[in-house]
């Protein structure tokens, strides 16, 4: 796809939260630290990392739900970082989100039809009546029936509620959809239904996904590209298949080794990293993994590690592995 414009391109994105520590003292917490990523049309970029790695903050920055401290966000080559007011409202129709908890993200007082129609009322100035045909189509497209439009969220199962969340996100035919752990609160059998649905919608509508997850087996299935985050930093990124086959960064390696696999012959490896993830406030000035890394040397403590391309878009932020 030469010449095709990336659906999303973020450059040097940084978010610093000012945190009150004690009394009048403050500390700066870098939740997202100098992140550069892009997603091509119709592709899925998965962002993985443990809690506190900054993956959700990253998603919120991209959707302009938070203001970045530094850096730019380009949606289809348009800089949306500084947009305001009506201009920003228009762009919001092009980027949508599906949340982790399907019930919490639906208004309990609104019918499913109203919830799914709302983006059309907001972004395309349609009336409920004008929207109803597209709502019915969309509900069928996500595997529900048009009759579900009259139901309320409490009448739905978890899987059905998540289908409603997906219908709401897709109805404006957005270019980018952020999927924030969309299957982690669903049962196993329902989880695979939702993954298959997401994949067929992507093929049909050429949507780009930013897929946030801590579940590596789901990511292995759905992602084209992968970015691994640790304490606000992307430590490794590139084609998903290649990273799963040969992880280079010690943290990626630890994540993959620790993930339990549904194979009794495979035993997970537990003693790769030392201790637990510290607070981002206590991070070493150099590599974020310093202190837990089994291959660290003294220089790692104060030498910041930049992502280096080791070929084929595979980038690693570790001088010992590049």
């Amino acid at each position, binding site marked *: 796809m030469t010449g095709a414009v990336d659906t999303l391109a973020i450059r040097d994105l940084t978010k610093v939260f000012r945190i009150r520590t004690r009394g009048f003292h403050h500390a700066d917490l870098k939740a997202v630290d100098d992140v550069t990523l892009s997603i091509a049309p119709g592709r899925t970029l998965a962002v993985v990392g*443990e*809690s506190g790695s900054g993956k959700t903050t990253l998603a919120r920055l991209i959707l302009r739900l938070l203001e970045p401290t530094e850096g730019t966000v380009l949606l289809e080559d348009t800089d949306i970082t500084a947009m305001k007011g009506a201009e920003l409202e228009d762009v919001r129709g092009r980027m949508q989100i599906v949340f982790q908890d399907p019930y919490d993200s639906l208004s309990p007082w609104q019918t499913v039809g109203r919830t799914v129609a709302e983006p059309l009322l907001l972004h395309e100035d349609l009336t409920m009546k004008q929207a109803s045909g597209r709502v019915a189509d969309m509900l069928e497209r996500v595997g529900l029936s048009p009759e579900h439009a009259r139901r309320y969220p409490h009448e739905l*199962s*978890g*899987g*059905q509620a998540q289908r409603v969340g997906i219908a709401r996100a897709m109805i404006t035919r957005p270019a980018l959809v952020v999927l924030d752990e969309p299957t982690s609160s669903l*049962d*196993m*059998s*329902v*989880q*695979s*239904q939702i*993954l*298959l649905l997401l994949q067929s919608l992507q093929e049909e509508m050429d949507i780009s996904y930013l897929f946030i997850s*801590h579940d*590596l*087996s*789901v990511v*292995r*299935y759905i992602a084209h590209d992968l970015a691994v985050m640790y304490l606000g930093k992307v430590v490794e990124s590139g084609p998903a*298949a290649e990273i*799963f086959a040969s992880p280079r960064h010690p943290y990626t390696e*630890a*994540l993959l*080794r*620790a*993930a*339990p*696999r*549904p*194979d*009794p012959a*495979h*035993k*997970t*490896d*537990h003693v*790769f*990293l030392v201790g*637990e*993830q510290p607070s981002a406030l206590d991070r070493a000035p150099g590599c974020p993994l310093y202190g837990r890394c089994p291959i660290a040397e003294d220089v790692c403590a104060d030498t910041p590690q930049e992502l280096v391309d080791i070929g084929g878009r595979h980038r690693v932020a570790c001088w010992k592995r590049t």
Partner: protein
Amino acid sequence: MSALLEVRGLEVGIEGLPILRGVDMEVKPGEILGVVGETGAGKSMTARSVLDLLPAKATVSFASCTFAGQDFIPPKARQEARGHRIGFVPQRPRGSLNPVFRVGNQLSGTLRRLRNMGRREAKDEALGLLRSVRITDPERVYRSFPHELSGGMCQRVCIAIALAGEPELIIADEPTTGLDVTIQAEILRLLGEVISERNAAGMLITHDLGVVADVCDRVAVMYAGRVVNLGTTAEIYREALHPYANRLVSIATSLDSGGTPREVPGRVPNPGDHLAACAFAPRCFRAGPGCFDEEPPRIDRTGQIAFCHHPVNAGEVMR
């Protein structure tokens, strides 16, 4: 080898709704039994029945229930075993610790109550227990409040509390849900180690087939209040007899290898839903007419037990 814990025909109802509909399960000495299933399958309810920790409005009946040869049907027998002979590791470690007491006091308090220890003796023993769950600085953790500890550390403390009564069986209910993968791996290893060090047995409740494959010797797969398939982990993962168990394993393995998972249509039934004779029949790819009206027979084959009219045949490719 006779079972350590044997449960037969366990039925639990809450306000007239059947939650467990005849659960048969046993834990053998020295093994870790995995109990897997989706929401509402009855995994936690089974464990809570054994510990007599069900809500007050629940009705419980067993066809039989024994623990190390002792009749476990009288609620008093189960209450007396709780903490002493059966330890419990909860799902939300921080929520299960009292936020206003230091964890050391909670641990030594448990020891004083369960083992009639004096103050000094209980503290020494508590520090020893913290060390045995691989906490490197037990003195500091002893003095900490739960909110000062990470989720993984809180779960280590909960495991230490579960060990306080020197139990013969440890029941862990989703012990790593909500923990990060690297911490999950450590907690699972720790559980396996403390169980084998003490020659105890374990029952691990989870929805994660990766976790089961990692630590369990045998698996019980539950669906809608029953155990539908039971067998050694190796057998169940190689070729589960019950179509439901077979599909779950197939979904997990295909996702894990990056392949496209087979779809299981429909959803898990809610308590009170009308159920066919085999509760899985409406979603099953092998179901025939008999599945809806006749109780599924017990199939005993290749080290597995399954309740199914049309079990997956040996060598049949379902993946």
